[in-house]
């Protein structure tokens, strides 16, 4: 059984990394472990560093559509704070309730808003990070457009905690869709001519229905679309995002850009059992996201981040 260190502040996280580094112990940052499957395949940490206690909104600038958050905050908690401001996070991914924003952005994750606002990492303007030796660095900026310095933010996002520990993110917020309306249609071929003006298009496992949401004046609805009660649409969205929040899901991002959920083996990771994975319940590797093979660049970049420290997540297997 591996131990978990809990950091409730930047200073605590920094101290944990410094001590681990001094003792030659490798750490891997985690949040609420809802996406741990994607982080573990090739990582061999001695212990975990949980950041789920760092869950504050540090700043919210509604006028500039920017907010500053700690990584342990849940997407749902952020959405609640944004309600009434006409703003929302440009990401809709599984784990909205149980997961953390840190996990969402650090694990390669898909978003139901992809066709509207791009992939999750497009929503992060800048961040503060702790490197494996505990040193604090800043990347990106807090304005919506900046090309000063290399785009280290994008390189670190999606790196599953192997390059740096995210301790703060500056997120770009998006305006809520105006004149928003819900429809359903059969989950058959969905030509691009029917997709304009939509911000959501998804289906649920076992159902042949595609749920659609968009600007009532902008969409190209056809006779095959049926109006859907907003309540029903929102319920479907909640099911889509939460029913599979604990690793047993796969979102396939088809070339056609609509997103379909497929049910995988659920409950393979039991939180009560600590971090020991029950091998018989491990999803087949085809369900793991990302593939089990690490990028050949990982080791080189870990060395560049902290030339003298044990890398986050431990040394690569030979």
């Amino acid at each position, binding site marked *: 059984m591996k131990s978990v260190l809990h950091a409730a502040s930047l200073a605590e996280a920094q101290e944990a990394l410094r001590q681990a580094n001094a003792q030659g112990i490798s750490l891997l940052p985690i949040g609420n472990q809802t996406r741990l499957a994607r982080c573990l395949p090739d990582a061999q940490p001695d212990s975990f560093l949980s950041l789920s206690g760092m869950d504050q909104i540090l700043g919210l600038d509604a*006028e500039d559509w920017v907010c500053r958050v700690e990584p342990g905050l849940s997407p749902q908690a952020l959405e609640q704070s944004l309600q009434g401001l006409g703003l929302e996070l440009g990401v809709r991914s599984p784990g909205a309730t149980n997961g953390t924003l840190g996990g969402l952005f650090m694990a*390669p994750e898909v978003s139901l808003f992809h066709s509207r606002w791009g992939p999750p990492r497009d929503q992060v303007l800048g961040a503060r990070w702790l490197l494996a030796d505990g040193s604090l660095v800043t990347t990106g900026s807090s304005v919506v*457009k900046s090309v000063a*310095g290399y785009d*280290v933010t*994008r*390189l670190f996002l999606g790196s599953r905690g192997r*390059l740096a520990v995210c301790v703060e993110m500056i997120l770009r917020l998006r305006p809520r869709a105006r004149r928003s309306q819900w429809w359903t249609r059969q989950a058959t071929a969905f030509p691009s001519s029917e997709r*304009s003006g939509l911000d959501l298009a998804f289906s649920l496992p076992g159902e042949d229905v595609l749920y659609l949401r968009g600007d009532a004046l*902008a969409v190209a609805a056809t006779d095959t679309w049926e109006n859907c009660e907003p309540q029903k649409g929102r319920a479907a969205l909640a099911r889509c995002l939460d029913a599979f929040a604990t690793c047993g899901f796969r979102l396939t991002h088809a070339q056609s850009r609509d997103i379909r959920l497929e049910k995988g083996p659920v409950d393979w990771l039991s939180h009560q059992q600590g971090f020991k994975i029950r091998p018989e319940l491990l999803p087949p590797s085809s369900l793991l996201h990302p593939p089990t093979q690490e990028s050949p660049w990982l080791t080189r970049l870990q060395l560049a981040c902290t030339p003298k420290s044990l890398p986050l997540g431990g040394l690569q297997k030979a």
Partner: protein
Amino acid sequence: MTLSASLIAALRIAVGKRWVLTDPAALLAYESDALTLFRCQPGAIVLPQSQDEILRCAQLFQETQTPWCARGAGTGLSGGALVPPGGVILGLSRMNRILDLDPDTQIAVVEPGVVNADLDRAASAHGLRYAPDPASWNVCTLGGNVAENAGGPRCFLHGTTTNHVLWADVVLPDGSLERWGDPSGEQQDLDLRGFLVGSEGAIAVATKIGLRLQSRPATSETLLAAWPSIRPACETVAAVVASGLLPVALEVMDQAAICAIEDSNLRAGLPTDAGAILLLEMEGGVAQVAADTDAMESLVRAHGPTEVRRARTARERLALWKGRKGAGGALGRLGRDSLVMDGVVPRSRLADIMDVVSAIRKETGLPIANLFHAGDGNIHPHFSYDARDPEQAAQVIAAGDRILRACLDMGGSLSGEHGIGVEKEHLLAEQFDEASLALQHRLAQAFNPDDLLNPGKGLPLRRGCMEVFRRHSPAKVS
């Protein structure tokens, strides 16, 4: 420092004799990009036509430890496409083929020398477009756009180049070839593609690029509103953004910029008596644009403009945008030399940064025009001056630094789309602390260990080579 005859000979074998240029007249054309403040004559120009030729060249540069950089159309505005003496510039303008354009997946595959507007034109045949639209889009290349993460007016709604690059085949300084990213745009591995975009040509050279296209909107509307001064125009921008109406572009121009356009062949009927104008573009479905433009017009009118007008015809609309995009050129006529600054503030601070610019204009007497991507808080003060006058040139540089420092004080950034290059590296340490800059340097070194690819740019830590890029060289100016 001159290049060895054996390297020149090997390069001639690699790309063909006529595509290696060494005569002084040819080299002169490549001694600067569009930021003429910095000049440095390269040792040779090589014009490859294929990925294999680039690979071969990279291997030769590695073997001979020759500094080199890739260059598109040379429209960059931060001195990014310069090499130190004895270095080689790889001009990619001959690699200008659109290799694939798939209307179903809405993905285009291009060579780096394809001109931005050419891709957009090719896409329009399928009802598609390429969204990022830098002012130089008629000449700038997509490879250069990738290196600098180019922006443009439409980026307010559609994002900058990095939001539209799905993947790239890259040649690394050690002469190897890799593919970064994939057609889904959902990076499942380390986002090397994301690190490449905006790396100012210093980690790898893209030889083939997969770009996301999008449907052309069914219709567009342009609104023009005028005020006696720039502050209410900036405040209206904040109100428009807060309304959630989502125009595709929000551009502000001051009187100096308006008059320069109206005095040029780009005349668009702009109100020359206005202190500032705001251009707003709406796009989308017919019903949506009609409703949103009406809402926008009443919102703008509530901010007390002296005039609000809608472009009545497509021709009138295009004239307005042609004026905006050509404003840099029109302003170029006002002085012997031009310097276009690039800085970013939170958009709620636009009026404040304009006060700073205006104070500097009063204090120094320098002609400064303003035209900027207001929706993104991305300002572009435009200085007209005479580079032959060292005192005036120094004054322009000092004024530019003051504006950029004010941007940083307001929580902004040193650059929104032009890049750091050789222009701003001395200020970068004021935006990032030492540990963060050192990290950037180490990460870049992982890709470019011998610092052969585009050395001396982008980071103050690479200053070793910096001094070779001279600011102002009057002897060279004709």
